[in-house]
Structure formats: structure tokens, C-alpha cells
């Protein structure tokens, strides 16, 4: 199984600004002084090997959307934030309009930033495509229909050409979907959210975003340790610093890098993928948080190392 990240930003999409790009250019060009970069090959080598990711790239600005590449014929997606637009375009580029596809979408919840990409997900406009939207909220279908109702959007849900189905899942109940064993779990978030544990061929991926963890709730902690148990990858909402998450931003429905590491260490997870980045953070800040989190894992490690990555739009992770 391979995860491809199309949207990794929390709460609202953001875009790189001209001053931010200027800052990256100044840093990159300053570092190039005296290096004799007089060919495109030397420049490419310098960019690829000597510049940090936050300078040569960006974590990106699309809101939540990840697809899971499996060995099956059907596509699997988590959430339909604004990252669903480039994902849909990539699908259209690959399969064209004449080759009907089936898409299974697992929704963490139906807050705006997680559904806003759906009207821009090109496959919904292609006759013959089948899109099954799975989730545990009884308002699942209503939320998608309301988003496209006048006066909020020019194309009503009823005008979409693809066949669109809704599947209400039961938290804690494992379901076989698209060749995967999928188990949803209730999470703490305003209006509820759900994480998904996906297992296939001896591999396991957990998608757990928009989930607040009360660190003094021992029962809740134990249930998440079991939910994450021995996963190859856990995609985790690490939006805030711990001090913020348990004080001024308590009950905002998100978690921290510290809690992500603690839960993953307790659960024997192989890779923690920090996700749903704070929209106020620039690339430099997210990169710094990543380094700090790796250090925190190092100084608290009592078992095998936990790999830590920070999701970015375009990242691919193989379980």
C-alpha cells in the first residue's frame, strides 16, 4: 500500500506568497555564492542535495486529501479537501473520460475543509464513474448536497454525472471494502470525527486526523494505542504544540506532535506522519517542528525507532 498526499494543510487552504518565495530565493542564492554553479546540472545537484526541503520546496497548502494506492482496481481516498482537485485532475489525465473508474472515499468528517474539494474533483462530472462516499456521520449525504446547493455553488449535486453512493459505516465494525479491511473509530472533535484503520496483505495504515486527545483520559489513550497497534504508518493530526493543545486551544479538536509520538511509541508504530498542518505555520516553522519531533522521539525512545515524517502535498509513503 502506498499513500499519496494531495492536501496536508489544516482547517483552510493556504498559498505561498510572493514574499515567502522571495525569501526562499534569497536563501538559495546566498547559499550558492562561491560554489561555481555554472551548469544546469550543478545547479540541480545543489538544489537537490544542499538545500533543505523548506527552502527548495514547500509543504503545500491544500486541505486534507490523501489517496491510497492498492493492488486492486478500485481507488481509495481519505477526505475530499481542496487537494481533491489536483487528485481528480491526475486521475483524469491517467484514465481519461472513456474508462470508468470506482472511487471509495473515507470521510473523517464533513467540516468544510474536508469536503470543499468535492465539487472540483473532476471524476464526479464523468458519466460511468462510481464514487462511494463512506463515513459514520448520518449527515454525510446532506453535507455534500448542501455544499453544492444554490447560492453556494453553480452546479447542484443532482447535476453530477457520476454515480454517487453513500455508505454509512459503524464505528468499531470492520468492513471489507476495495480489498481492504477498514475499521472506523470515533474521535474527539466538534461534531465528531472518525479515524480509519486499513489493513491488507499484512500491512496497516491508520488515517487519524481532526482528533483531539485528552492526555489525562487513560481509557481514551488506551483505545487509541490499540487502534494504532503495530501500524506501518499513522497519519496523525499534529496541528499544535502541546502547550497550546491543552490550554488556549483545548477543545479545538486537534492534537500535537508530542502526543503523536507518545501514542505511536506505545503502539509500536513504524512511521508517524504528521499531518493537518497549522495554516499559520510557514515552511520553515513546519520543518523546525519536524526536527524537534524527531529529537523528542530520540530522547524518549525505549524500543525500536519510530520514523517521523511531515506530510507535504506530493509526498508518497509506502507501507
Amino acid at each position, binding site marked *: 500500500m502506498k499513500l499519496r498526499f494531495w492536501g496536508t494543510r489544516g482547517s483552510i487552504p493556504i498559498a505561498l506568497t510572493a514574499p515567502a518565495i522571495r525569501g526562499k530565493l534569497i536563501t538559495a542564492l546566498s547559499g550558492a555564492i562561491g560554489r561555481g554553479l555554472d551548469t544546469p546540472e550543478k545547479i540541480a545537484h545543489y538544489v537537490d542535495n544542499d538545500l533543505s526541503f523548506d527552502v527548495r520546496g514547500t509543504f503545500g497548502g491544500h486541505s486534507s486529501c490523501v489517496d491510497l494506492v492498492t493492488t486492486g482496481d478500485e481507488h481509495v481516498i481519505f477526505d475530499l479537501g481542496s487537494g481533491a482537485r489536483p487528485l481528480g485532475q491526475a486521475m483524469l489525465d491517467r484514465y481519461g473520460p472513456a474508462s470508468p473508474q470506482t472511487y471509495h472515499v473515507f470521510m473523517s468528517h464533513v467540516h468544510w475543509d474536508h469536503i470543499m474539494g468535492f465539487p472540483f474533483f473532476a471524476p464526479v462530472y464523468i458519466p460511468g464513474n462510481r464514487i462511494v462516499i463512506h463515513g459514520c456521520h448520518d449527515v454525510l449525504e446532506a453535507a455534500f448536497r448542501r455544499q453544492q446547493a444554490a447560492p453556494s455553488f453553480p452546479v447542484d449535486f443532482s447535476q453530477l454525472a457520476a454515480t454517487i453512493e453513500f455508505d454509512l459505516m459503524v464505528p468499531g465494525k470492520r468492513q471489507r471494502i476495495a480489498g481492504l479491511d477498514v475499521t472506523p473509530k470515533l474521535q474527539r472533535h466538534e461534531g465528531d470525527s472518525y479515524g480509519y484503520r486499513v489493513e491488507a496483505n499484512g500491512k496497516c495504515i491508520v488515517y487519524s486526523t481532526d482528533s483531539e486527545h485528552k*492526555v*489525562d483520559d*487513560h481509557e481514551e*489513550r488506551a483505545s487509541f494505542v490499540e487502534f494504532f497497534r503495530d501500524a506501518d504508518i499513522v497519519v496523525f493530526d499534529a496541528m499544535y*504544540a*502541546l*502547550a*497550546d493543545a*491543552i*490550554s488556549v486551544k483545548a477543545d479545538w479538536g486537534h492534537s*500535537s*506532535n*508530542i*502526543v503523536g509520538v*507518545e501514542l505511536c511509541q506505545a503502539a509500536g508504530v513504524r512511521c508517524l506522519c504528521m499531518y493537518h498542518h497549522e495554516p499559520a505555520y510557514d515552511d520553515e516553522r513546519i520543518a523546525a517542528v519536524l526536527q*524537534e*519531533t524527531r*529529537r*523528542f522521539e530520540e*530522547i*524518549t525512545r525505549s524500543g525500536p525507532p519510530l520514523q517521523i515524517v511531515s506530510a507535504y502535498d506530493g509526498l508518497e509513503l509506502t507501507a
Partner: protein
Amino acid sequence: MDLKPTHQGSATVLSPAGRIDHATADAFQGALQPHVDQCKAGHAPIVLDMHGLDYISSVGLRVLMMAARQVKTQHGRMVISGLTPLVKEVFEISRFNLVFELFEDRRAAIAALGSDG
């Protein structure tokens, strides 16, 4: 958990030691709470001398956060001293270094509290 309370200068000094994690956080909170309740305007400030603390996890940090908030509403003062390098890193990564006044050691904390009246 025995916090070994002592009175030095104008302050009450508490000395948690070992690990504060899911196994010990409740005991830490229970031991700390009576002192926090007394940490009001006009009463002795608290110095949490953590030189003997090997590790503090998120649940232990939450106990400190709740204590800090209560002390603030009571117009008292609670500071931390003597963090080991590793625990200091945990404070920095979790941003708890922005929540508390941190001092190198107990003597510096007591001196600062004394000079501040």
C-alpha cells in the same frame, strides 16, 4: 508522591523526582494540589525544583499547565528550576518553556522571587 516540601527564603520549594508519566501523573497531581491551592497573592510562591526529574510526559505537563492556570487566577506565582538538559528539551519542544519562568537552579529561582518581592 513525596515532593519533599521545604521553605527557603520566601518560597515553598517542591522537588519532584524520577519520572512523571501515565503511571505517576495522578500521584504528582495529588501531591502538588494542596500547595497550588495555597499559592495565592500574599502567600509563599512555589519553586518546582526539577533537578531530580528524569522525564515528564504529556500527562505530567498537563498537570503543570493546570497548576499554572490556577496559580495565575489566584494571583500567586510558581516557577521552575533545575531542569536537566533532556527535560529542558521536552519543555522547549512542547513550548512549555513559554508557559513557565525557568531558572538554572533553585538558588537563582529563590533569588529572583526574593528580589521581585
